[in-house]
């Protein structure tokens, strides 16, 4: 009886646990597969971007070589001088249409200089077999320039040719210099810290030897190839690889390990507690991870985003000015484009500030400005968005004199606060902004800006955490509101750098009230420059 009871008990406890465990493991597994797939897509995308960068650098090299080859000449002394002085090419050659070398003077071997003789020995295969001519012939008849790659000595050698009438002018590229220039155009490890966390990109030659790599990794041995592409022509023998050191999934540890130990009751309890903890941890950390991923993504693309964004914003504003407010519907639509592009600008600025902050690379640039003008400009940007959500603005601005401070920092700090009102506190229908200047006995000044709303406010237990990066008050209200979750953290960081702070002040009746303080220097004694 007793053993059967134990067995039954065991069955009752173990079976659901096993099922839960199996399901859990499967879900985690599936999720990882999906994630894996998505990640490798992202990586390939990154590699393509690198390939494009290499291609651009190669184009630039080509352009400079072409400049060295001009004006076209067959004059021996001029070509010798060029070959002697060129930093990009080893030797120049000129072919006549039928493939015969006009320079170096192969017809009179006695006239060859030692370096010309060496060059001809090096490239004999190309001239004797008519390979270059063949390659020129294969290219489109309209092509004016092209590359010819061949193997000799240390690996891939390259020639760049260009047509001039019946003649073909050729530059034998200094291969190591080209490689050094391509490398110079690629990122360094310290530049990419936030994007490539734990990953490494490697440029490899035809034999799979690493030519250059970047991205810092803890354990080089654990690196595994996660994605690989071949470079585009003419460097198609080379490849790019994305390698990462894989981290074990969080879920699998929890789900897998416990089935082995059979301490039923205790285990069930522990399992439940752990399971819940794991669930919450996973939820929480997934959110954090996703937010961090979003930031990392924006950081990667932000500089590239800026050019199209500039165009969208600038042209929308040009259009807005042209329309001159005559067509109301049109201005409304334009307003949306302008204010949304401004929102995107803000987001990018935040992300970049954040990653610079992480690298201790934040700098302030002091200028003489009227702080109220800065505040008005910020509000002006938000005007369409605020009025669309029915939020009235109440102003009490009192810093009409010039101060020395960083207007971009002030704009960014206050912009983030106003943006939060627009996103989270629209139901209060009011935004109040107040500004003022305190003179301190030291002669330094301190400005303060209050941003206040009548929204739902921040719950007391969350108040301490809202300044942490990626933290978002977890309630129904934040659903459907997108953002990176770093705005407040950045605002505070910037303010502190600026000798001040951002704090959430206690408020009796609903809503929240943020107080920004910044140290500023009096303009009377102009001290342009940055703090040490």
């Amino acid at each position, binding site marked *: 009886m007793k053993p059967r009871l134990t067995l039954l008990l065991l069955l009752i406890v173990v079976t659901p646990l096993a099922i839960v465990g199996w399901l859990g493991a499967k879900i985690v597994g599936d999720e990882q597969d999906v994630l894996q797939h998505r990640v490798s897509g992202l990586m390939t995308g990154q590699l393509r971007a690198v390939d494009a960068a290499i291609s651009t650098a190669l184009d630039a090299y080509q352009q400079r070589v072409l400049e060295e080859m001009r004006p076209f000449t067959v004059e021996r002394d001029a070509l010798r001088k060029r070959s002697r002085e060129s930093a990009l090419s080893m030797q120049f050659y000129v072919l006549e249409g039928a493939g015969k070398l006009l320079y170096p003077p192969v017809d009179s071997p006695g006239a060859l200089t030692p370096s010309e003789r060496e060059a001809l020995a090096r490239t004999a295969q190309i001239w004797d077999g008519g390979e270059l001519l063949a390659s020129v012939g294969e290219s489109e008849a309209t092509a004016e320039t092209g590359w010819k790659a061949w193997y000799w000595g240390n690996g891939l050698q390259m020639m760049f040719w260009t047509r001039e009438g019946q003649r073909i002018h050729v530059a034998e590229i200094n291969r190591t210099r080209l490689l050094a220039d391509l*490398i110079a155009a690629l990122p360094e490890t310290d530049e990419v810290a936030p994007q490539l966390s734990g990953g490494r990109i490697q440029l490899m030659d035809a034999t799979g030897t690493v030519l250059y790599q970047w991205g810092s990794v803890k354990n080089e041995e654990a690196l595994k190839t996660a994605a690989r592409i071949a470079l585009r022509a003419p460097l198609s023998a080379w490849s790019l690889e994305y390698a990462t050191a894989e981290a074990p999934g969080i879920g699998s540890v929890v789900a897998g390990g416990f089935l082995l130990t059979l301490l039923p009751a205790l285990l069930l309890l522990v399992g439940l507690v752990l399971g819940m903890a794991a669930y919450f941890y996973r939820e929480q950390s997934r959110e954090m991870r996703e937010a961090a991923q979003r930031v990392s993504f924006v950081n990667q693309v932000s500089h590239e985003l800026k050019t199209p964004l500039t165009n969208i914003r600038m042209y929308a504003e040009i259009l807005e000015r042209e329309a001159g407010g005559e067509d109301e519907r049109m201005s409304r639509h334009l307003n949306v484009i302008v204010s949304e592009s401004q929102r995107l600008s803000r987001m990018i600025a935040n992300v970049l500030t954040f990653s610079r902050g992480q690298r201790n690379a934040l700098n302030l640039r002091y200028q003489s400005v009227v702080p109220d003008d800065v505040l008005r400009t910020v509000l002006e940007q938000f005007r369409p968005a605020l009025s669309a959500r029915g939020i009235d603005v109440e102003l009490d601005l009192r810093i009409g004199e010039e101060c020395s401070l960083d207007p971009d920092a002030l704009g960014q700090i206050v912009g983030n606060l106003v943006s939060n009102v627009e996103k989270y506190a629209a139901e209060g229908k009011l935004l109040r902004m107040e500004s003022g200047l305190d003179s301190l006995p030291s002669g330094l000044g301190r400005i303060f800006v209050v941003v206040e709303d009548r929204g739902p406010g921040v719950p007391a237990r969350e108040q301490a955490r809202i300044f942490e990066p990626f933290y978002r008050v977890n309630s129904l209200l934040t659903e459907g509101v997108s953002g990176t979750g770093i705005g407040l953290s950045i605002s505070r960081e910037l303010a502190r750098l600026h000798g001040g702070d951002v704090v959430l002040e206690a408020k009796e009746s609903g809503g929240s009230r943020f107080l920004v303080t910044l140290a500023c220097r009096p303009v009377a004694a102009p001290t342009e420059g940055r703090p040490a």
Partner: protein
Amino acid sequence: MTNQTMKTALARIAVTMLVSLLALPLTMSGATVRLNVDAANPMLLSGGVRKTYVRVALTGMRSDRGVRAPVNVAIVLDRSGSMSGAKMAEAKRAAILALDRLRDDDIVSIVTYESTVDVLVPATKLYDRRAIRRAIEGIEASGSTALFAGVGKGARELRKFLDRNRVNSMLLLSDGLANVGPSSPGELAQLGTSLGREGITVTTIGLGLKYNEDLMTRLALASDGNHFFVEEAEDLEAAFATEFGDALSTVAQGVTIHLDCPEGVRPIRVLGRDASIEGQRVHASLNQLYQDQTRYLLVEVEVAPGAAGRVRPVANVTVGFRELATKTDQQLRGDASITYTNSASTVESRKNREVMVAVASQIAAERNKVATALRDEGKIEQAREAFRQNKVYLQDKAVELAAPSLKDEAKVSGEAEASVADEAQWNRARKQQMESNVQVQTQRAPKAAPKKKQE
């Protein structure tokens, strides 16, 4: 004043004038650079084809302006795992001390490399020294050695402010074998050539006994830079100091030398330096010229027969350079000629001692290379004999030409001779050998004697 003393004084003045007039075609001097063109044998034996050497010597003069040219320097540091500990600490200290010698308007960049590369300080003026110092102090060693990429990135930083009126140089430190990216001496030499043509000089410092001296010396030679073998980390400071001392005393750069041989004279080869011979012309270039230092081009020429008493011009030289003090392009001209004689003893007694010292030095450097190659092939005995002969050659020349500098070079050959058999000793001797060769070939300063360590 008596008539007699008056006469003597006049005569003296006349002689001085005459001498300076005579010297004029041979010595031409811009404000900051002096050019001397000399034949090793101003007198040649008549009646046959003869060989001699022509030396084109350029000396940086003391600048009276007292203002040195601004520099644009990239410090490229190895921070691979093998550097950890005292080596890294000394390297950082040497770099920081070197920076103290720079002015605020100089430009510096700092690149570190291990498996990957970091541009620690992108090219910047030295207004914020504290930040730069902090960056250097924060360097930690780990990983492999991506030397090629380090040089590439350093060059990129220099290129941002490449300026003919600035001294553009890179200081590369490595203690190990390059193992990420191109790492053969030939490839690095090719890169060095390219950088040299752009006006960037790469000086290399090999630290300890495990670096590849072929790679480091060829990179330096190809870009007209210096090379130092620093066995003990504590001597890094002296090497940095010498290199910065050179850079800071640069008076001219972008020096081009064109030497034309007239009819009846044929250039055969150039000793020690990369130069191109195109028929009757020789082209060579030097990146920098330092104050109080003489650098030269040495050309072996073949001279057609002539009758005694006949004078034959052997070289017409044009030198162009950027004078840093005035930020202007300058040109100097000079020539050399020989006179035929029937007397062998006159030929001997009129030999130009300085040129002969240079020739001996260059020839010994070439022979040392041959001896080193023999040792590399495992022909130990042949190598020992070659080094011994070279040592004796240099010792003899030192006595014959009363040149103590040759005696020092003989010592280096002697050490090589003594250590060919033992692997560890040979490793050290080979590095010394190569270091000495670079300094002979580029006529650059050996590193300063290390300062006494402070207690």
